[in-house]
């Protein structure tokens, strides 16, 4: 008699087990799905954090290079971060996060560890506007490093940099390095500006002129140094003056 019940009992038990297993798996799957979602969110969060840390590392490296340069350079500088650029379409300018309260004054030179960036044109309380070297309203004195011929470095409306008024007999060549000549009060002598890309001199021209490729990529700038004061670099050209007179402190 019991055998009559055993068959259906086994079937019902099997079905019950099956349903139970399915239910347990479903619930487990649900938990797995939820865990999966959680892990995905975690991965996204960690990726974001990793990206932030990578960005901070890049910035830290850049500022470390700047501070190393700042420590060894023969001038007093203030490091600044770039917080805005090209506010007006007709000027090649950047906005830095240091202003009058940090000791920044108008006409101070701005550099990176690579070379010259531009000049402070306007100072607010906590920010300052820097005109880049590629702006036509900025002109500094430069010289060809090898031949020591001097000229005026000035930007163009197209964002290029020209070196004007080079002596007509100057042996300037493509690839020659251009550095600051130190004749103006804002930059010491010998700071790298760029390289001569092209030399032009028409038959009727009194001077030669050249196109300069800047050493600094202005579009990728993130940090700069503002020159607050410097001692003129004593060169071999003036040994007597360096021996007899103390080098004066210049403040632009």
């Amino acid at each position: 008699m019991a055998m009559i019940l055993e068959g259906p009992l086994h079937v019902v038990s099997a079905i019950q087990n099956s349903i139970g297993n399915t239910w347990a798996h479903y619930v487990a799957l649900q938990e797995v799905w939820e865990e999966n979602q959680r892990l995905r969110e975690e991965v996204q969060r960690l990726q974001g954090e990793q990206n932030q840390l990578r960005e901070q590392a890049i910035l830290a490296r850049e500022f470390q290079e700047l501070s190393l340069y700042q420590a060894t350079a023969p001038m007093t500088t203030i490091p600044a971060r770039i917080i805005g650029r090209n506010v007006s379409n007709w000027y090649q300018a950047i906005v830095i996060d240091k202003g009058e309260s940090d000791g920044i004054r108008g006409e101070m030179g701005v550099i990176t560890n690579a070379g010259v960036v531009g000049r402070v044109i306007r100072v607010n309380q906590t920010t300052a506007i820097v005109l880049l070297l590629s702006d036509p309203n900025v002109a500094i004195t430069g010289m060809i490093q090898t031949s020591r011929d001097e000229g005026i470095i000035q930007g163009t409306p197209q964002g290029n940099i020209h070196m004007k008024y080079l002596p007509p007999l100057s042996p300037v060549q493509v690839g020659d390095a251009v550095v600051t000549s130190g004749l103006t009060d804002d930059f010491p002598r010998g700071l790298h500006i760029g390289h001569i890309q092209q030399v032009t001199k028409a038959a009727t021209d009194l001077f030669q002129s050249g196109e300069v490729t800047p050493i600094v990529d202005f579009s990728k700038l993130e940090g700069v140094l503002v020159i607050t004061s410097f001692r003129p670099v004593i060169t071999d050209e003036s040994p007597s003056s360096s021996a007899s007179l103390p080098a004066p402190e210049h403040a632009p």
Partner: protein
Amino acid sequence: MIIAGYLFLCIGTVVAQATLSAMLSINEIYPDLCLVLVCIIGFFTNEYKGLMIGLTMGLFQDLLAPGGIGLNMILKGLAGTLAGLTTHTISTVTLSAVVLITLALSLGCGLASLIVAYPDLIGPEAFHAIVGTLVPQSLYHSVLAAGIFLGTHKARKAFGMVHSGQGIR
């Protein structure tokens, strides 16, 4: 509250101009977001609001620009006023009107800025500045203004702020 909103818009636009314009640049052509927004506000409101917001936005822009204070203030105020005035002289502000007026205002403001920024610019360099920068920039402004106008117009229509056949005012 409305004044605070407009003030927030002015500050936000100038900050966006300083931080995002490099992202929005196409082939070294940077849009003047302030000019575009002043024109749009002039179209959607009236010449008085266009003037006031133009002056405010121009002042904020001048504070972060290398040139002296005044140029952007005057130009943006003028642009806002003229954009607002067109909504009186043209009964319905259409897309083509927005494009053409923005283009004209952008060309005018750009030319004035160019003359003030580079007073000694003559010959091929001036030609290059006009053809290579001023005209493409003005076209870019027109496209941006058209995009904002269409987007805002559709949003206003969706929220029942515009009755069909009556134009946007």
